[in-house]
């Protein structure tokens, strides 16, 4: 078995630099502020520094002011647990891009790479590819490949790309400093090794095992076996979690949409990059906003089909925030993305090619952002007798295309011994001479005044329609929902419908609400 170990050195710093990628290569220090028992905040102290800051003389333990004094161009960033968790999760997503199951440790991921030999010409190329893909999710990682988990773990402390050949573990570890056996080694062992003059792992491995066990105890015996390339730590991989999260704490509460959208765009880009690592798309997100009032604002954004584009997601979030602004300024954001497979378009030789599912999803998302998500979808007849009712459901490109019930299309009956149809006749075989007459609805139905005579309505007047009624067909009575009462105590509704030919040339459909004695214009036949 060959195992790859992916390691994020200086995890808190890398996590912060994922948020501020423009600070890479500059002097950066992370600070933490403690709150004492008396409730007073301590001075911010530096906990991690970048290589550039270290070269300028900034060290962990200094106060922020001391750090600024040592390096004038030092950037001080607060250490945020949510950033560390996101970076750790991003490493996991990276691992899932190469293996279906991985084992996770804080700042590390282990995955089995035996099967990847068919895809990559060598382990060196594989390690390089993994590191390159890690940069896409904002992480600079070390990669080591070995036959044993602990050996791979030690190797990641030694260099950027380390390949330990099978059976050559002891030889590969021998020249490395003995301090790499631990992370870090205990102070006792460090002092002991210094007293004994043991500087390398090879020198430690050469010591007799029984003496090491006697003098250094269980911990020393374990490290001695590792130094000799012996490792029995099991590899325990697990399946990926369902959701991908990225969060962000804000230094100052946000009250306006534009700055919030700017911040959200970064979160969405990172989430989608992680999903792309796993060759997945995003089927929707849950946006959790922590408000200044310590309350939470939860929003669900659903997509018609998984997508890998941030723009439609951001548009839908902006639309949702515009329609329903938060009650208080926002201090923290968390985006939880639901992963889903981006469906491949299976072409059909017998059908015209339609829009690709992911492109269709992006188009529907843009349309939803333009006209509102409640105005895009496939229409649906509602389960009610109210004629004007209409619902919306998810548009399915792959739904069956047979004509619906009540269709006017009728198949031609074959006639025995008939001559075969010409191509033109075949083309016209399904042509209709008498297509269905459809109705256009006014939504909502327009209340009108109607002059009623002995034979029914004689004239109508609305906001924009005034006409004499030439012919009135009806009434067609429709009553339903008797199990429900309205505010006036009426059970359900009772309507008399009329189809009328008006003097303006149109054929209207109108109804008389018998409970409330009101007339409404439902639409016209067209």
């Amino acid at each position: 078995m060959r195992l790859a170990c992916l390691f994020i050195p200086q995890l808190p710093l890398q996590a912060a630099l994922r948020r501020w990628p423009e600070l890479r290569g500059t002097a950066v220090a992370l600070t933490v502020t403690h709150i004492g028992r008396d409730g007073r905040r301590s001075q911010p102290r530096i906990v991690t520094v970048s290589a550039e800051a270290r070269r300028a003389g900034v060290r962990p333990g200094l106060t922020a002011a001391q750090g600024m004094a040592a390096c004038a161009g030092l950037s001080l960033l607060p250490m945020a647990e949510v950033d560390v968790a996101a970076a750790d999760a991003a490493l996991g997503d990276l691992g899932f891009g190469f293996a279906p199951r991985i084992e996770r440790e804080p700042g590390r991921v282990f995955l089995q790479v035996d099967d990847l030999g068919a895809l990559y010409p060598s382990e060196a190329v594989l390690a390089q590819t993994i590191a390159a893909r890690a940069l896409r999710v904002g992480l600079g990682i070390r990669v080591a490949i070995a036959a044993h988990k602990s050996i791979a773990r030690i190797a990641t402390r030694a260099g950027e790309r380390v390949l330990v050949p099978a059976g050559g573990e002891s030889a590969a570890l021998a020249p490395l400093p003995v301090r790499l056996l631990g992370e870090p080694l205990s102070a006792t062992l460090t002092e002991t090794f210094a007293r004994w003059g043991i500087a390398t792992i090879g020198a430690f491995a050469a010591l007799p095992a029984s003496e090491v066990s006697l003098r250094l105890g269980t911990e020393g015996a374990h490290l001695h076996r590792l130094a000799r390339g012996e490792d029995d730590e099991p590899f325990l991989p697990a399946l990926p979690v369902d959701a991908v999260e990225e969060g962000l704490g804000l230094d100052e509460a946000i009250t306006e949409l534009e700055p919030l959208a700017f911040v959200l765009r970064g979160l969405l880009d990172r989430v989608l990059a992680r999903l792309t690592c796993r060759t997945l798309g995003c089927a929707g997100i849950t946006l959790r906003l922590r408000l200044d009032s310590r309350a939470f604002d939860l929003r669900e954004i659903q997509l018609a089909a998984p997508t890998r584009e941030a723009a439609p997601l951001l548009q839908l979030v902006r639309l949702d925030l515009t329609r329903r602004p938060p009650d208080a300024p926002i201090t923290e954001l968390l985006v939880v993305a639901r992963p889903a497979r981006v469906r491949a378009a299976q072409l059909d030789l017998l059908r015209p090619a339609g829009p690709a599912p992911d492109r269709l999803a992006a188009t529907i998302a843009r349309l939803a952002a333009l006209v509102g998500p409640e105005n895009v979808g496939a229409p649906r007849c509602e389960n009610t007798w109210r004629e004007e009712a209409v619902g919306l459901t998810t548009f399915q490109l792959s739904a069956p295309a047979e004509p619906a019930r009540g269709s006017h299309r009728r198949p031609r009956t074959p006639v025995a011994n008939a001559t075969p149809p010409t191509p033109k006749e075949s083309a016209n075989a399904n042509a209709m001479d008498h297509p269905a007459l459809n109705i256009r609805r006014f939504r909502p139905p327009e209340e009108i005044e109607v002059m009623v005579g002995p034979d029914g309505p004689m004239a109508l007047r609305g906001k924009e329609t005034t006409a004499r009624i030439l012919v009135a067909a009806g009434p067609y009575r429709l009553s339903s929902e008797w199990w429900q009462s309205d505010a006036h105590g009426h059970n359900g509704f009772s309507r008399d419908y009329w189809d009328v030919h008006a003097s303006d040339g149109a054929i209207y459909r109108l109804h008389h609400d018998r409970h409330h004695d009101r007339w409404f214009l439902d639409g016209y036949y067209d």
Partner: protein
Amino acid sequence: MALPNVKLDEALVAELRLVPASRLGQEPSRPRLPTGIRAVDGGLGGGWPAAALSELAGHRSAGRTSILYASLAAAIARGQAVALVDALGAFDPRSAEAAGIPLARLLWIRASARTLLPAADLLVAAGGFGLVAIDCGERPPRVPTAAWVRLQQIAEKQGTAVVLAAPWRMAGAVARAAIVLRDARPRFLTAGRPLLLGLEARVGISRGMAANGNWGAGPAARADADADATSAAGGPARAEPEADVVRFWSRPA
């Protein structure tokens, strides 16, 4: 002095792909999207031109909605993806089902006057749709000609047929085909209490492919132009333009 009559070298014409003026009216043959209505398909030369902008005009109760729904149903039956951009949300699912539209296969967008054309743009530009119908409603928005030209170009590029339904023609010469419905008359059964049977209208082809393969004003528009010229010269009253009659039934026949 008469201008010299120079005959172009045939090889040069072929190399530069020059089109003689006598053939400028001819369009390359284009696939057709039948509506399934004989009177309409006959006038259009087989159906709506694919990858082009077409118009369907008619006032209230002239039949334009029924022709539009029949076009959508026919496109879905052929396996094409279709969408309807609806300016007023006037779509009625029950009567659309009766017209043969499987509702789950229709992408319905309820737009406003402001978002009608941007929504249509998005759909056509996305590609993959066989037919995009734009129902402009009662009061279509005022749209500059450049916007129609742009929509026609996108439709041509993506291979999508775009049908624009409005009370009157809007796209002018940009539309490759145009149908104008006129002289609509309802049909009522009057034995006893009246019963609405259907509607009858005349289908005038205002722009389309003529029998000789030339594009241009259709028989209805040409008849109008001839009649106008005749009456302006003091001739007889304008003749009725050629048109087919289409009958719509409000109940299954």
